[in-house]
């Protein structure tokens, strides 16, 4: 019996997320953004959240909707400012949400380090820039590095393509982005997927995220492509 739970509805998938939680949210722009899980989290009601994601929301859906609902107290991301990040922009300028900007590769590696049990690591990115101010540095073999600490999640919400009932995940194209590293870095990892198949139906050679990193899976309702019957 797999420890991964296949949830039948979105509300069940987000049960137990607490106020003040650090939530890792997958996606790069809208590619890989787990919008159904985020909508369920809005309904579930957890607040004072710290959100870790590449961006700070686009348009009015997904992360932007969570921000608009007033549930987020801090955003840790690489690129908050976009043409359609008006929800975040307004909250930030009003002083209602804190921001930590992290170089994108450092964000990925700090999350990876959390999942891999690394206590901290020396990284060349950002040396001599404002984003390294106040951080410990060291010269190793003549090159300067900045000490960076892992980012652990209480929860990770990710979007994937296919899951099997053992929790193994496949992704689709560039929607993979932060999914695999976030899955490993959180105490509770929840994936929304287009399709759930039986254990054994994914070739073990091509599994991207092994089920050990995945606690809950939510299968999204399939979008019907059948022509709609219209009475004549």
């Amino acid at each position, binding site marked *: 019996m797999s420890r991964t739970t296949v949830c039948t509805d979105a509300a069940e998938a987000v049960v137990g997320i607490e106020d003040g939680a650090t939530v890792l949210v997958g996606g*790069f722009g809208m590619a890989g953004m787990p919008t159904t899980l985020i909508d369920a989290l809005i309904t579930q009601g957890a607040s004072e959240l710290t959100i870790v994601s590449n961006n700070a929301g686009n348009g009015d859906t997904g992360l932007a909707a969570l921000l608009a609902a007033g549930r987020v107290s801090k955003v840790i991301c690489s690129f908050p*400012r976009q043409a359609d990040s008006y929800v975040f922009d307004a909250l930030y300028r009003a002083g209602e949400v804190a921001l930590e900007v992290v170089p994108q590769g450092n964000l990925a590696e700090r999350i990876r380090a959390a999942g891999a049990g690394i206590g901290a690591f020396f990284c060349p990115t950002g040396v001599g820039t404002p984003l390294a101010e106040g951080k410990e540095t060291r010269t190793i073999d003549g090159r300067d590095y900045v000490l960076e600490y892992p980012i652990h999640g209480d929860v990770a919400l990710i979007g994937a393509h296919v899951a099997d009932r053992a929790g193994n995940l496949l992704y689709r194209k560039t929607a993979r982005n*932060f999914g695999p590293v976030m899955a490993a870095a959180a105490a509770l990892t929840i994936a929304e997927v287009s399709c759930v198949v039986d254990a054994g139906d994914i070739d073990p050679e091509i599994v991207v995220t092994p089920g050990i990193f995945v606690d809950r899976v939510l299968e999204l309702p399939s979008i019907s492509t059948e022509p709609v019957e219209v009475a004549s």
Partner: protein
Amino acid sequence: MTRTLGASTPTVVEHLDRDLLDRRELAAMVARDIPPGSYVNLGIGQPTMVADYLDPAAGVVLHTENGMLGMGGAAVGDAIDADLTNAGKIPVTETPGASYFHHADSFAMMRGGHLDVCVLGAFQVSQRGDLANWHTGAPDAIPAVGGAMDLAIGAKRVFVMMTLFAKDGTAKLVPQCTYPLTGLRCVSRVYTEHAIFDVDGDGDGRVRVLETFGVSVASLAERMDVELH
């Protein structure tokens, strides 16, 4: 008139009987200097145009930091797929031999020195190759760095594409950057509409002019605070 200056190498070529480079010609100049078979990351904005001038037969492989090697051109019509975008979130296509990977692997490629060239825009470049391209420093600006700092220090060679002069007429290739830095001593070459420069070529902090377009080295030197060699 094309004039070649200097007996020692590298010589400077002044293309005087022409206008400044336009944006497309600038992109073509960058593409010309990317060796066949290179793994290349093109930054968001103007650097993306370089892809249009790469010879398909040269086998240059494009990397996009959101997790793909072998990126093709912009997707149109039925080829648009919300799960396949470039770093600017524009729908793109895949080429034969393409691969997908997660973000930590993507930046390991960069930081680990596996990319041959990246092309970035800039607010300022210093004569020793410091780059400022992520933040104007304005107090009301929302800071957003994306992958700029990782790209700046990761690729073996960093090419910058920018206008040589800001709107107020001041040069953007400067003795020392006044904007917040993206990376230290990371830029190899600067492509502008007026000229192409090598910066900090031998680690000596000197700027060498390689080619000029519609202007002479002497006239550029009058408008710039860095010494041109």
